[in-house]
Protein backbone atom coordinates (compact mmCIF):
# COMPACT_ATOMS: atom_id res chain seq x y z
CA UNK A 1 0.00 0.00 0.00
CA UNK A 2 1.10 3.54 -0.74
CA UNK A 3 1.63 4.60 2.88
CA UNK A 4 3.70 1.51 3.73
CA UNK A 5 5.82 2.05 0.63
CA UNK A 6 6.47 5.63 1.66
CA UNK A 7 7.24 4.62 5.24
CA UNK A 8 9.73 2.05 4.02
CA UNK A 9 11.29 4.58 1.70
CA UNK A 10 11.67 7.62 3.97
CA UNK A 11 10.48 6.52 7.41
CA UNK A 12 9.15 8.82 10.10
CA UNK A 13 12.39 10.04 11.56
CA UNK A 14 12.32 13.68 12.58
CA UNK A 15 15.26 15.44 10.88
CA UNK A 16 14.69 18.69 12.75
CA UNK A 17 16.25 19.78 16.00
CA UNK A 18 15.68 22.63 18.44
CA UNK A 19 18.25 24.74 20.30
CA UNK A 20 19.47 23.31 23.59
CA UNK A 21 17.00 23.81 26.49
CA UNK A 22 14.61 25.40 24.04
CA UNK A 23 11.41 24.08 25.64
CA UNK A 24 12.40 24.98 29.21
CA UNK A 25 13.49 28.47 28.11
CA UNK A 26 10.32 28.85 26.06
CA UNK A 27 8.11 28.38 29.11
CA UNK A 28 10.04 30.98 31.10
CA UNK A 29 9.90 33.48 28.20
CA UNK A 30 6.22 32.85 27.64
CA UNK A 31 5.20 33.18 31.27
CA UNK A 32 7.12 36.47 31.50
CA UNK A 33 5.33 37.85 28.47
CA UNK A 34 1.75 36.85 29.31
CA UNK A 35 -0.58 39.83 29.42
CA UNK A 36 -2.64 40.46 32.53
CA UNK A 37 -6.12 39.08 32.12
CA UNK A 38 -8.99 39.64 34.51
CA UNK A 39 -10.11 36.56 36.34
CA UNK A 40 -11.47 34.25 33.68
CA UNK A 41 -14.35 31.93 34.34
CA UNK A 42 -13.97 28.53 32.80
CA UNK A 43 -17.48 27.26 32.33
CA UNK A 44 -18.00 23.54 32.62
CA UNK A 45 -21.28 22.77 30.92
CA UNK A 46 -23.18 19.95 32.67
CA UNK A 47 -23.89 16.87 30.58
CA UNK A 48 -27.69 17.29 30.67
CA UNK A 49 -27.37 20.84 29.35
CA UNK A 50 -25.20 19.65 26.49
CA UNK A 51 -27.52 16.77 25.64
CA UNK A 52 -30.87 18.55 25.86
CA UNK A 53 -30.63 20.61 22.64
CA UNK A 54 -29.39 17.58 20.69
CA UNK A 55 -32.16 15.41 22.09
CA UNK A 56 -34.73 18.01 20.97
CA UNK A 57 -33.23 18.17 17.49
CA UNK A 58 -33.14 14.36 17.29
CA UNK A 59 -36.81 14.16 18.32
CA UNK A 60 -37.81 16.65 15.63
CA UNK A 61 -35.72 14.83 13.03
CA UNK A 62 -37.29 11.48 13.92
CA UNK A 63 -40.70 13.09 13.51
CA UNK A 64 -39.74 14.51 10.13
CA UNK A 65 -38.34 11.15 8.99
CA UNK A 66 -41.59 9.38 9.95
CA UNK A 67 -43.60 12.04 8.16
CA UNK A 68 -41.55 11.74 4.99
CA UNK A 69 -41.69 7.97 5.11
CA UNK A 70 -45.43 7.93 5.47
CA UNK A 71 -45.81 10.45 2.63
CA UNK A 72 -43.46 8.65 0.27
CA UNK A 73 -44.78 5.12 0.78
CA UNK A 74 -45.24 3.40 -2.54
CA UNK A 75 -42.83 5.67 -4.35
CA UNK A 76 -39.81 4.07 -5.96
CA UNK A 77 -36.58 4.32 -4.05
CA UNK A 78 -33.86 6.43 -5.62
CA UNK A 79 -30.33 5.22 -5.20
CA UNK A 80 -28.02 7.74 -3.60
CA UNK A 81 -24.35 8.16 -4.32
CA UNK A 82 -23.67 9.98 -1.06
CA UNK A 83 -21.98 8.01 1.67
CA UNK A 84 -22.29 8.60 5.34
CA UNK A 85 -19.46 9.41 7.72
CA UNK A 86 -19.78 5.89 9.12
CA UNK A 87 -19.52 4.29 5.69
CA UNK A 88 -16.49 6.42 4.90
CA UNK A 89 -14.87 5.28 8.14
CA UNK A 90 -15.36 1.65 7.19
CA UNK A 91 -13.58 2.08 3.87
CA UNK A 92 -10.07 0.67 4.05
CA UNK A 93 -7.14 2.65 2.65
CA UNK A 94 -6.92 0.16 -0.23
CA UNK A 95 -10.58 0.76 -1.12
CA UNK A 96 -10.05 4.53 -0.96
CA UNK A 97 -7.09 4.19 -3.31
CA UNK A 98 -9.21 2.32 -5.85
CA UNK A 99 -12.10 4.77 -5.60
CA UNK A 100 -9.89 7.86 -5.86
CA UNK A 101 -7.78 6.47 -8.67
CA UNK A 102 -10.94 5.78 -10.68
CA UNK A 103 -12.68 9.02 -9.89
CA UNK A 104 -12.39 12.33 -11.69
CA UNK A 105 -11.43 14.10 -8.48
CA UNK A 106 -8.03 15.75 -8.73
CA UNK A 107 -5.82 17.27 -6.06
CA UNK A 108 -6.96 20.80 -6.79
CA UNK A 109 -10.65 19.90 -6.44
CA UNK A 110 -9.84 18.29 -3.12
CA UNK A 111 -7.89 21.30 -1.97
CA UNK A 112 -10.82 23.55 -2.86
CA UNK A 113 -13.15 21.24 -0.97
CA UNK A 114 -10.96 21.19 2.12
CA UNK A 115 -10.63 24.96 2.05
CA UNK A 116 -14.37 25.46 1.86
CA UNK A 117 -15.29 22.75 4.30
CA UNK A 118 -12.92 23.64 7.10
CA UNK A 119 -14.46 25.29 10.07
CA UNK A 120 -11.90 26.49 12.53
Amino acid sequence: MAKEELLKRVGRENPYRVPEHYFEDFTVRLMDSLPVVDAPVVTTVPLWKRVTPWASVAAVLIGVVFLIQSLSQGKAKVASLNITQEQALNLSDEEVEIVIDNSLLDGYALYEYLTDASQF
Partner: protein
Amino acid sequence: MKIIDESQIIVRLSKPEERRRAFEEMVCAYRETVYWQIRRMVFNHDDADDILQMTFIKAWTSVDKFRAESKLSTWLYRIAMNETLTFLTRQQQHQQISIDEVDSNLLNTLESDIYFDGNELQRHFQRALQTLPPKQRQVFNLRYFDDMKYEDISFLLGTTVGALKASYHHAVKKIQVYLDSVE
Protein backbone atom coordinates in the same frame (compact mmCIF):
# COMPACT_ATOMS: atom_id res chain seq x y z
CA MET B 1 5.12 14.91 27.26
CA LYS B 2 4.15 15.26 30.90
CA ILE B 3 0.98 13.51 31.95
CA ILE B 4 -1.46 15.95 33.52
CA ASP B 5 -4.92 15.66 34.94
CA GLU B 6 -6.87 17.82 32.50
CA SER B 7 -9.96 18.12 34.65
CA GLN B 8 -7.86 19.38 37.55
CA ILE B 9 -6.12 21.91 35.32
CA ILE B 10 -9.47 23.14 33.97
CA VAL B 11 -10.81 23.67 37.49
CA ARG B 12 -7.65 25.49 38.54
CA LEU B 13 -7.70 27.69 35.43
CA SER B 14 -10.99 29.10 36.67
CA LYS B 15 -9.52 30.14 40.01
CA PRO B 16 -7.67 33.48 39.77
CA GLU B 17 -5.17 32.58 42.45
CA GLU B 18 -4.21 29.30 40.75
CA ARG B 19 -4.71 30.22 37.12
CA ARG B 20 -1.16 31.24 36.30
CA ARG B 21 0.39 28.13 37.83
CA ALA B 22 -2.16 25.86 36.16
CA PHE B 23 -1.51 27.53 32.82
CA GLU B 24 2.23 27.02 33.22
CA GLU B 25 1.66 23.32 33.89
CA MET B 26 -0.49 23.11 30.80
CA VAL B 27 2.25 24.78 28.74
CA CYS B 28 4.85 22.34 30.05
CA ALA B 29 2.58 19.41 29.19
CA TYR B 30 1.74 20.42 25.62
CA ARG B 31 4.54 22.71 24.40
CA GLU B 32 6.49 19.95 22.63
CA THR B 33 3.63 18.26 20.80
CA VAL B 34 2.16 21.59 19.71
CA TYR B 35 5.61 22.80 18.64
CA TRP B 36 6.19 19.78 16.38
CA GLN B 37 2.76 20.16 14.81
CA ILE B 38 3.70 23.72 13.90
CA ARG B 39 7.29 23.01 12.89
CA ARG B 40 6.21 20.31 10.43
CA MET B 41 4.02 22.92 8.76
CA VAL B 42 6.44 25.86 8.60
CA PHE B 43 9.77 23.93 8.66
CA ASN B 44 11.74 26.80 10.14
CA HIS B 45 12.49 26.92 13.88
CA ASP B 46 12.19 30.71 14.32
CA ASP B 47 8.79 30.76 12.62
CA ALA B 48 7.63 27.78 14.69
CA ASP B 49 8.81 29.54 17.85
CA ASP B 50 6.84 32.71 16.99
CA ILE B 51 3.68 30.74 16.21
CA LEU B 52 4.00 28.63 19.36
CA GLN B 53 4.25 31.80 21.43
CA MET B 54 1.22 33.31 19.68
CA THR B 55 -0.71 30.08 20.24
CA PHE B 56 -0.21 30.09 24.00
CA ILE B 57 -0.80 33.83 24.32
CA LYS B 58 -4.08 33.39 22.48
CA ALA B 59 -4.96 30.47 24.75
CA TRP B 60 -4.19 32.60 27.79
CA THR B 61 -6.29 35.53 26.67
CA SER B 62 -9.22 33.35 25.67
CA VAL B 63 -9.08 30.76 28.43
CA ASP B 64 -12.44 32.02 29.73
CA LYS B 65 -14.01 30.97 26.41
CA PHE B 66 -12.86 27.39 26.84
CA ARG B 67 -16.01 25.52 27.78
CA ALA B 68 -14.51 22.12 28.59
CA GLU B 69 -16.57 20.47 25.87
CA SER B 70 -13.42 19.30 24.14
CA LYS B 71 -10.05 18.27 25.53
CA LEU B 72 -7.55 20.97 26.41
CA SER B 73 -5.11 19.41 23.96
CA THR B 74 -7.66 19.54 21.11
CA TRP B 75 -8.42 23.17 21.91
CA LEU B 76 -4.71 24.04 21.84
CA TYR B 77 -4.06 22.16 18.58
CA ARG B 78 -6.94 24.02 16.95
CA ILE B 79 -5.54 27.37 18.01
CA ALA B 80 -2.08 26.32 16.82
CA MET B 81 -3.36 25.19 13.44
CA ASN B 82 -5.33 28.39 12.97
CA GLU B 83 -2.30 30.47 13.83
CA THR B 84 -0.13 28.40 11.49
CA LEU B 85 -2.51 28.72 8.55
CA THR B 86 -2.84 32.46 9.15
CA PHE B 87 0.95 32.74 9.21
CA LEU B 88 1.38 30.76 5.99
CA THR B 89 -1.31 32.75 4.17
CA ARG B 90 0.25 36.02 5.28
CA GLN B 91 3.70 34.81 4.29
CA GLN B 92 2.50 33.79 0.84
CA GLN B 93 0.72 37.12 0.30
CA HIS B 94 3.70 39.05 1.58
CA GLN B 95 6.29 37.25 -0.52
CA GLN B 96 4.26 37.03 -3.74
CA ILE B 97 6.72 34.53 -5.16
CA SER B 98 6.26 31.72 -7.64
CA ILE B 99 6.21 28.00 -6.79
CA ASP B 100 9.68 27.56 -8.33
CA GLU B 101 11.04 30.28 -6.11
CA VAL B 102 9.40 28.70 -3.06
CA ASP B 103 11.07 25.42 -3.98
CA SER B 104 14.52 26.88 -4.38
CA ASN B 105 14.08 29.03 -1.24
CA LEU B 106 13.26 25.96 0.78
CA LEU B 107 16.27 24.10 -0.58
CA ASN B 108 18.52 26.99 0.43
CA THR B 109 16.80 27.21 3.80
CA LEU B 110 17.31 23.52 4.51
CA GLU B 111 20.94 23.65 3.31
CA SER B 112 21.72 26.45 5.72
CA ASP B 113 19.41 25.42 8.59
CA ILE B 114 21.57 24.52 11.56
CA TYR B 115 18.56 22.81 13.12
CA PHE B 116 18.12 20.38 10.24
CA ASP B 117 20.01 17.10 10.55
CA GLY B 118 18.47 15.15 7.70
CA ASN B 119 20.26 13.32 4.89
CA GLU B 120 19.69 13.85 1.17
CA LEU B 121 16.57 11.67 1.07
CA GLN B 122 15.01 13.48 4.02
CA ARG B 123 15.80 16.79 2.39
CA HIS B 124 13.90 15.67 -0.71
CA PHE B 125 11.07 14.41 1.49
CA GLN B 126 10.79 17.80 3.19
CA ARG B 127 10.75 19.51 -0.19
CA ALA B 128 8.00 17.14 -1.33
CA LEU B 129 5.98 18.07 1.77
CA GLN B 130 6.47 21.73 0.97
CA THR B 131 4.79 21.21 -2.40
CA LEU B 132 1.54 20.18 -0.70
CA PRO B 133 -1.04 22.93 -0.06
CA PRO B 134 -1.06 23.79 3.67
CA LYS B 135 -4.37 22.06 4.48
CA GLN B 136 -3.35 18.88 2.70
CA ARG B 137 0.00 19.02 4.50
CA GLN B 138 -1.87 19.22 7.80
CA VAL B 139 -3.90 16.13 6.98
CA PHE B 140 -0.79 14.29 5.82
CA ASN B 141 1.21 15.19 8.94
CA LEU B 142 -1.52 14.16 11.37
CA ARG B 143 -2.04 10.82 9.65
CA TYR B 144 1.51 9.93 8.60
CA PHE B 145 3.60 11.16 11.53
CA ASP B 146 1.08 11.03 14.38
CA ASP B 147 -0.94 8.03 13.18
CA MET B 148 -4.07 9.94 14.16
CA LYS B 149 -7.42 8.28 13.40
CA TYR B 150 -9.49 9.80 10.61
CA GLU B 151 -12.36 10.44 13.06
CA ASP B 152 -10.05 12.49 15.28
CA ILE B 153 -8.63 14.46 12.35
CA SER B 154 -12.19 15.05 11.19
CA PHE B 155 -13.10 16.46 14.61
CA LEU B 156 -9.96 18.59 14.70
CA LEU B 157 -10.21 20.04 11.19
CA GLY B 158 -13.98 20.04 10.71
CA THR B 159 -13.71 18.03 7.49
CA THR B 160 -15.47 14.82 6.50
CA VAL B 161 -13.68 11.49 6.80
CA GLY B 162 -14.19 10.77 3.10
CA ALA B 163 -12.49 14.01 2.08
CA LEU B 164 -9.65 13.37 4.53
CA LYS B 165 -9.02 9.89 3.17
CA ALA B 166 -9.02 11.15 -0.41
CA SER B 167 -6.76 14.07 0.49
CA TYR B 168 -4.31 11.83 2.31
CA HIS B 169 -4.18 9.36 -0.54
CA HIS B 170 -3.47 12.19 -3.02
CA ALA B 171 -0.75 13.58 -0.77
CA VAL B 172 1.04 10.22 -0.54
CA LYS B 173 0.89 9.85 -4.33
CA LYS B 174 2.22 13.38 -4.90
CA ILE B 175 5.12 12.79 -2.54
CA GLN B 176 6.01 9.52 -4.24
CA VAL B 177 5.92 11.13 -7.67
CA TYR B 178 8.16 13.92 -6.39
CA LEU B 179 10.64 11.49 -4.87
CA ASP B 180 10.68 9.41 -8.07
CA SER B 181 11.53 12.52 -10.07
CA VAL B 182 14.52 13.47 -7.95
CA GLU B 183 16.04 10.06 -7.22
